[in-house]
Each structure stands twice: as structure tokens, then as C-alpha cells.
């Protein structure tokens, strides 16, 4: 086990991700723009008559928007590994005495921390314009989002780890993240959806992510919290396992 999880190496990778994050501020701006548009444009315009569990439509989708931000940032982060593979840092890590498990953990944690910092911005904006959020709610949201982000980062790393070129990048965003977002309860109550959408939403792990965040922020949930937690944890384990397998096969040949 000691050879698989190397603390110093994991710290190095996390530190590197944070340094890059701090120097590429465009990444942060570009990825909070669309959640904010959804929250304020769609949220406000559809606001008039909606009343879901005593909340306005904008308040109802706010946890969904938090989830959206986590989803898109995390998956895109995972895909950046293709870029790393093409040049720079990844080769340096691949030839170092760092196991692929440590590489995976470092990469995933780096992504989670980045996504959390971004999510915090939206949480604060929401606190001023959408609904009051207590410190406890903030902490709980952070914890929940940590696991959600880890899961989605892992999906991105799995896809990115297997892909060789950047061309597939947009394809993945269109065919993985948008469906995950739309076939979920982020923007509407799935109990009112038609059967197909409902079925897809129930399989979609992202649904349970949003449900937990909604439970924390609005005390309103469609599924039992314990079920959501178990589903998210199981997905985290399965996806980590697959991604580590994929990472073990990465070599430096382009």
C-alpha cells in the first residue's frame, strides 16, 4: 500500500494543479458564466408562476445550478489530462517513482479543490441574490460537493486518460455532461417528467447529487438522503477503480 499511495507525490500533483489554476483565471471566469446565466436568465424568466415545495423556481433550481457548475468544471478538468499528456508535466510524473494510483489521487483532489473554490463563488452570489445560506449549510454543501466533484472528475479523467487527441473534447462535453445535466432533477422535478426522462434521471447519478444539495439548502428532496449518499459513494468507488485501471495503461507514446 505504501508504494501505491505516496503522500509527498500526491501533494506535489495537487500543488501543481492549484498553481496552474491560480495562473489560468480565464478557466474560472469561463466556467461560472453559464451557471450564472442559467440561474438568473432562466431562473428569473420562468419564475412568475412556479411554486415548488414553497420555493420560487429560481430558488428551486439554485442547488441544480451548483450541481451544474460542479459537473461541468469537474468533467472539463478531467479532460485537461489529454493536454497534459501531449506535453509538459504528465511525462515528468509518468517517469517519476510515483504510482499511477497516486497520480490519479493527486489529479482528482486537485480537480476537486479547484471545483470547490469555483462553487464557493456561486454559493456566495446565491446567498446575496437567491436565498439565505447559513454557515452550516455552506459547510455541508462543500462536503457533499466534494464527493460529487470527485465522482465527475473521475469520469473526466477516465475519458481523458483513454483519449489521445483533443478533438474528442467537445464531443465528450456534448454527449456526457449535457445529458447528465438535463436528464436529472437540476432544472425540474422529475416526478412530473414523462416516463423516459424519469427513467433516465433515476439511473443518472447526478440526480442524486442535486437531490442532496437541494436537501441541504432547501430541506426538500425527492429521494431518501441515505439512498443518495450510498449511490454516490458506490459510483465514486466504481469509477475510481476503472480510472486507476486506465491510468495504469497510459504510456508516454503519443
Amino acid at each position, binding site marked *: 500500500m505504501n508504494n501505491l499511495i505516496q503522500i509527498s507525490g500526491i501533494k*506535489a500533483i495537487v500543488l*501543481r494543479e492549484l498553481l*496552474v489554476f491560480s*495562473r489560468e483565471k480565464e478557466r474560472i471566469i469561463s466556467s461560472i458564466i453559464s451557471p450564472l446565466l442559467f440561474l438568473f436568465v432562466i431562473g428569473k424568466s420562468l419564475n412568475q408562476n412556479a411554486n415548488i415545495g414553497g420555493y420560487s423556481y429560481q430558488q428551486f433550481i439554485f442547488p441544480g445550478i451548483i450541481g451544474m457548475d460542479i459537473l461541468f468544471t469537474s468533467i472539463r478538468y478531467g479532460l485537461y489530462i489529454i493536454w497534459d499528456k501531449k506535453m509538459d508535466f504528465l511525462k*515528468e*510524473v509518468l*517517469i517519476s*517513482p510515483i*504510482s499511477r494510483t497516486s497520480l490519479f489521487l493527486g489529479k482528482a483532489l486537485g480537480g476537486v479543490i479547484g471545483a470547490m473554490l469555483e462553487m464557493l463563488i456561486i454559493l456566495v452570489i446565491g446567498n446575496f441574490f437567491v436565498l439565505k445560506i447559513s454557515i452550516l449549510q455552506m459547510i455541508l454543501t462543500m462536503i457533499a460537493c466534494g464527493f460529487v466533484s470527485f465522482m465527475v472528475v473521475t469520469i473526466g479523467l477516465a475519458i481523458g486518460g483513454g483519449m489521445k487527441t483533443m478533438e474528442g473534447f467537445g464531443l465528450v462535453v456534448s454527449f456526457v455532461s449535457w445529458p447528465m445535466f438535463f436528464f436529472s432533477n437540476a432544472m425540474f422535478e422529475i416526478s412530473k417528467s414523462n416516463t423516459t426522462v424519469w427513467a433516465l434521471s433515476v439511473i443518472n447519478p447526478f440526480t442524486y447529487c442535486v437531490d442532496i444539495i437541494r436537501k441541504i439548502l432547501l430541506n426538500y428532496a425527492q429521494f431518501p438522503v441515505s439512498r443518495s449518499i450510498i449511490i454516490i459513494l458506490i459510483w465514486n468507488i466504481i469509477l475510481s477503480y476503472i480510472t486507476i485501471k486506465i491510468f495504469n495503461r497510459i504510456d*508516454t507514446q503519443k
Partner: protein
Amino acid sequence: MNAINIKDITKKFKEVDALSGISFDIKQGEVFSLLGPNGAGKTTLISILTTILKPTSGTAVINGKDIIKEPLDVRKNIGIVFQEPSLDDLLTAKENLYLHSMLYNMPKEIAKKRIKDILITVNLYERKDHIVKTFSGGMKRQLEIARGLLHTPKILFLDEPTVGLDPFSRRNIWEYIKKVKKEQNITIILTTHYMEEAESLSDRIAIINKGKIIELDTPENLKKKIGDEILIIKGIVDDNRVRSLDFIKSVDLKNDKYIITSKEITKNLNKILEYVKRIDDIEIRKTSLEDVFLKMTGKKIEELDE
């Protein structure tokens, strides 16, 4: 003691043999060059030795560790500088080195001191907080070599360390490699397709072509194999008579020029000239590694580069 034992390594890419049955040893503390044209298999061999690529068959032992069975242990004791840069462009010189020290689990205090020392040695201390993107090609290469040496590896691999650099930077890197060798008793394996580089740096050279080692010896011995001196005559020469002289090693006709090699040309010039009927052009010089390469492969290294 041997730093590296290479045992019958073969690598196939699809059906093509990139390396076929390579075996040799590299001694502790020597500078060893793999000389060959592009596509000869140099980088493939380095990739296998540094555990990045798995051989199709065969193995190697580096510092007593098997590259296939104990790759992580092999990696602890080696430093690598790639042909293509692998620095993080968005980070500063110091950050790049600091992250490296963490990846190799160096104690923080030792790392800090070594980072400072090594930056001073490669003349980059003043630019330690500059982002690597702003560095010139030569500076980046210096920094990469510094990084490869940071964790005090026993063996340093340099894959085409000076390719694409200007002559000034190239000399700087050579000086640095020589210095490192002298001060640290480290084993250095470098690949190159520059004759001058191989000649000025190496204790021993392996000439590699089409995935096979065709010669392996010290630069002096390689040159002795074809004779110390070389005479090139453009004109009319009775080559059979010249060839029959006992001090002559070889006579070849290439591009209208007779290329005559021997241990001592100058001393015996009169005897050779007896069989020369007409001279349009003549040249006598010491044999270079280039001549050895030409003799062994039948081509100049540039001609073999695709």
C-alpha cells in the same frame, strides 16, 4: 561494476522491429553515447531503459533493479531529460524544481538547498521566479538537465540533449555535462545524431542503425578500426595496386573520389602516390567519427535521417 546490463532487448511496433536483440553493458561512471540517425531506435531503447515503454522481449538491470519487475525502484535512481521539453510552462523555474523534489520524496530542507545550488550552477538563479514560458530553448534545456539531476540520480539519461539549440547553448550544455561527470561520478547515457557531440563527450560509443548495434567501442578504437588517417583523392588512381600495399586498410570509390584509409598516410604518402596517375584534388586528414560512421553504414548520418 556495471550500471546497466541490457539483455537481449527486442521491441516490435506492429510488425516492424524497432530494436532487435540489443545486449550490452554500461559501466559505472562512464559517459555512454548511442549514436545513430533518426529512427534508428535510440529513443525507443532509452524509453525501455527508463521503464516508460515495455520491451517485446528481453530485459535490463539498472543499479541492480530489473526494469520490468521493479520499475518504481529503477525510477528512483535515474534522471531523464527528454528530447521534447517536459517542463511546466505555466510555472516558474523554482516551482518546477520544487515539484520535482516532492515527486522524488526529497526532504524539504535538502531540496531547498539543492534547488538553490543547482539553479546557480546552470546560471538561472536570477530567473528562478520567472515563468518558464519566457525562457529560451537553451535555458529550458539547462533547467531540464538541472531538474534531472536534482534528486541525485545514479544514472542520467539525456535524449538528444542539444537538438534544436544554437551552437552557443550547445557548448554550454556540453561543458555542463562534462562538469557533472567530473564532479559527481554519475553514469550518463546520451543519444545523439551529432558526431561532434558523441566524440567530445563520450567514453564509449555504440553506433546504432535500424534497431541494431553495429559497433561499440571508445571513440579512439572506433577510429583505429578504419585507420588513423584518411586520404581523399579526386583523379585517376590504380586502386588495386594501392589496395595491395601492406599499410593500407581500405580503398573505396565514392562520388568520383578515392577514399583511402591507413594507420599512417603521411609517412607513406610517396609510396601511394606512385600509383596515382592524375590528381585533381587531394586531402589528408585525421579520421573522424563521421568517417567511421560512413564506413560502417555506407552512408552519412544525414543521408540516413529521413
